[in-house]
């Protein structure tokens, strides 16, 4: 079963994937803090509304992952922002998220040293997204 991208059901499946990952558990063993991904609207891609993915991550565990509005997402300790199509590229492993930040394709706000320290955990989180079957709005037949 494929989940609609960035829907509540997708967020739950993503959380389960993270919590099933031994690699993530080890790489993020000391992580504390909320990370939010802001997925900017691209109406021409059938993604009309900006959404936030709120990820409450604590010592190798995803305590909560939910879809929130942009204003709420902006309050997280770490915020990574980019247009829908960029996030789709990241989720499909066509674009490395760290490289995307270095190129300015994704914008990061938060304590940089902390983010850099957990590069491996962030890479595993991307791996987890690839294991969640997704239905992308720009691929849904009209």
């Amino acid at each position: 079963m494929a989940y609609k991208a960035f829907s509540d059901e997708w967020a739950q499946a993503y959380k389960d994937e993270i919590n099933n990952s031994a690699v993530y558990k080890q790489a993020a063993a000391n992580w504390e803090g909320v990370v939010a991904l802001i997925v900017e609207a691209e109406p021409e891609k059938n993604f009309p509304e900006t959404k936030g993915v709120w990820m409450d991550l604590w010592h190798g565990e995803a305590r909560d992952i939910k879809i929130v509005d942009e204003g709420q997402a902006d309050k997280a300790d770490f915020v990574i922002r980019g247009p829908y199509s960029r996030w789709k590229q990241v989720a499909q492993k066509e674009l490395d998220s760290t490289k995307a930040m270095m190129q300015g394709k994704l914008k990061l706000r938060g304590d940089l040293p902390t983010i850099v320290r957990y590069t491996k955990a962030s890479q595993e989180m991307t791996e987890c997204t690839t294991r969640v079957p997704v239905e992308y709005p720009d691929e849904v037949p009209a």
Partner: protein
Amino acid sequence: MYPDGDEEASAIATMLAGLITANIEQHPERWKDFHKLSGTSVSIEVPDIEESLTLTFAGDDLVVRNGKQGRPAVSIKADSDVVMALNLVKTGPLGMPNYFDEAGRNVVKALVSGKLKIGGMWRVDTLNRVTRLFSVA
């Protein structure tokens, strides 16, 4: 941190300069390294994202320029994943970078395999200071 003239600093230049700034805020003892590097330039070339930058230490300031500028004392050339790996090198006893743990060994492997090229390696003192300023470990 200042971009060069009217040109806007690239994302990686902003990121690396931000990293040094945050590191110094969190470890004020690293100001000593920062000041000792005054007048020194370090260039970083990242071929996989087709970006390069030059950092020049100037008293309390860090001047960031896009591209390789002038004659840097140390020049680093590596893909983005290796540049990130460099930031994970820990500082060991006597302030020397620790190349014996996993993060350190990854950097040594990159050097041996040619994935990391460092010009000016003989300037050990400068290189160690730069490593300490970049280290988030």
